[in-house]
């Protein structure tokens, strides 16, 4: 289990999360739409990773649990990719 000695600094992670929220809000207000979208979703992905690795202790877990997090995401991307050509490009 997670060792008592070294444990991620939860407060620092929390500050990072809040900071990233503010960054994405700034991006959506100030920057052009197309650029802002990339920045906002990059921030969202970083926040998700921060929570998953530090708060969900994936940092200390074995491969099996990583697979359980990553494989469903791959599956969702397969579905998203197929839906794109049917609804976005109106084939």
């Amino acid at each position, binding site marked *: 289990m997670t060792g008592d000695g070294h444990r991620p600094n939860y407060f620092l992670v929390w500050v990072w999360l809040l900071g990233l929220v503010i960054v994405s809000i700034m991006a959506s207000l100030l920057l052009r739409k197309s650029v802002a979208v990339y920045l906002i979703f990059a921030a969202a992905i970083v926040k998700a990773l921060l929570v998953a690795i530090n708060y969900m202790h994936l940092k200390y877990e074995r491969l099996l649990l990583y697979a359980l997090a990553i494989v469903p995401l791959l599956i969702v991307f*397969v*579905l998203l990719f197929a839906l794109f050509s049917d609804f976005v490009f109106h084939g």
Partner: protein
Amino acid sequence: MKIFSTDHKTIAKQYLTLGLFWAIVGGLTSYLIRWQVAYPDTEAPGWGFIAPDFYNMLVTMHGTIMVFFVAMPILLATFGNFLIPLMIGARDMAFPRLNRLSVWVFALASLVLLLSFFVPGGAASAGWTGYPPLSANATYTGVNWGLNLWLVALALEFVSFLMGGINFLTTTINLRAPGMTFFRLPLIVWMQITAAVLFMLSVGPLIAGAVMLLLDRVAGTTFYLPEGGGEPLLWQHLFWFFGHPEVYVIFLPGLGIVLEIMPVFSRKPIFGYRPIIYSTIAAGMLSFVVWAHHQFLSGMDPRLAMPFSITTILISVPFALIVFAMIATLWRASISFSTPMLFAIGTLSIFIIGGLTGIFNGSAPVDIYIHGTYFVVAHFHFTLFSATFFAGFAGITYWFPKMFGRMMNETLGKIHFWLTLIFFNAVFIPMHFVGLGGMMRRIANPMQYEFLQPLQPTNVFITLAAVLLIVGQIPFVVNFFWSLFRGRVAERNPWQANTLEWSAGSPPPHGNFERVPVVYRSPYEYSSPEVVEDWLPQDRPPEPSTAARQ
């Protein structure tokens, strides 16, 4: 209290009871459907007239019941719950109380579906696939609460099998007996956990889709209604993204049962244990990228059809490997034709036909003509019927001594097999030709179309064969209930098989094993050169000097 037991064996029997009850209801709907198709607008004996919307309800309920309330509970829940702990040497499932909750949520789902028959407007009648806008707006089918309850029943059934899946996977990953490595697991356990993984990773989008459909019907949202900006095709993608892995979720446990039974009655190791496992995993992964072969003509982008046509036809390769492995198992074996073996061979030979007709459907241009015709109906009955009924009967007959402590009667079993085999083929082989003649699915009265008149004699033949098929199930019902109380008392290992469940009592006590067994070898060491007898249980310690015989 037996009913609220958390013992995986009792829960397996509860699923079996519910599954067999629904099999009877499903069988009734198929009788009424076939009667209406053969003799349109006449009174079905024992029932009366069948109106067109009632016919649509019958067709919808036949599909829903057979797929979600007969095949899944019997193949996945009954055999999975009963066999996984016993076969991996565990005392019970990893989460016994979650297991009990899963059977009770399934019972609730059954109740909700049963209720949906009696609400005003009748049960759902938009097809078991429930395509919107037909299913998204009550005015199109005239069914309001029936379809809402249908959606709730399906959602509950998904929740129940998600809980079951969590149990199967955690138990197999964590509670294996010492020495039971992954490559010493019996093939049925491999098939059950592959099916569980397929189900758990594919059901999500359909749950989201069902939430959206329920909101469309109840909260006035317009996910699938084009006049409100919605997209009807969205549901088809979400449904079939789940639908195709789902048919493998049903088929793999059936395949696992046959792979378990064949070596026992051939007294020979299963041919190619590892190739079968790699093929199953490959087929499982491929099953996630084939779904749109249901939508070649649905208004989907034609450029998207080709990749799905290619993946659909390629998925025949892993299953061909498994079929060849099963045939190779029979080579130079010593085959005894007991009832389980008969049903197992029946499953194999019928699945071969089902698999081959899949190539016609998979090829996009041919599908232009045969999509939505009875050719497709014949195809999926050859695959699903073989897994659910033939493999299901094989499994029930084979593990009956372990489940209930008594043997089933052999002669009744053989009568039931030959009746089922003959009448099954009499029903579904001609159905291919009715399909090629162009007869569309889900039409209540084929006489309304001129080009279907020449097919009507075949339809009448199919209906009579279907009635005889249903009548042919009586020997099984008699055999099942008679053997429960009067069958010959079974000892621990009546078939002299190697897997761990046969070293537990018949039926096993609570907690399964006096002491947790230790596993020394693969489950298929039949006629092994190391010993004189022609079987070698997994948990028998190797003798100090393995007297190698000739």
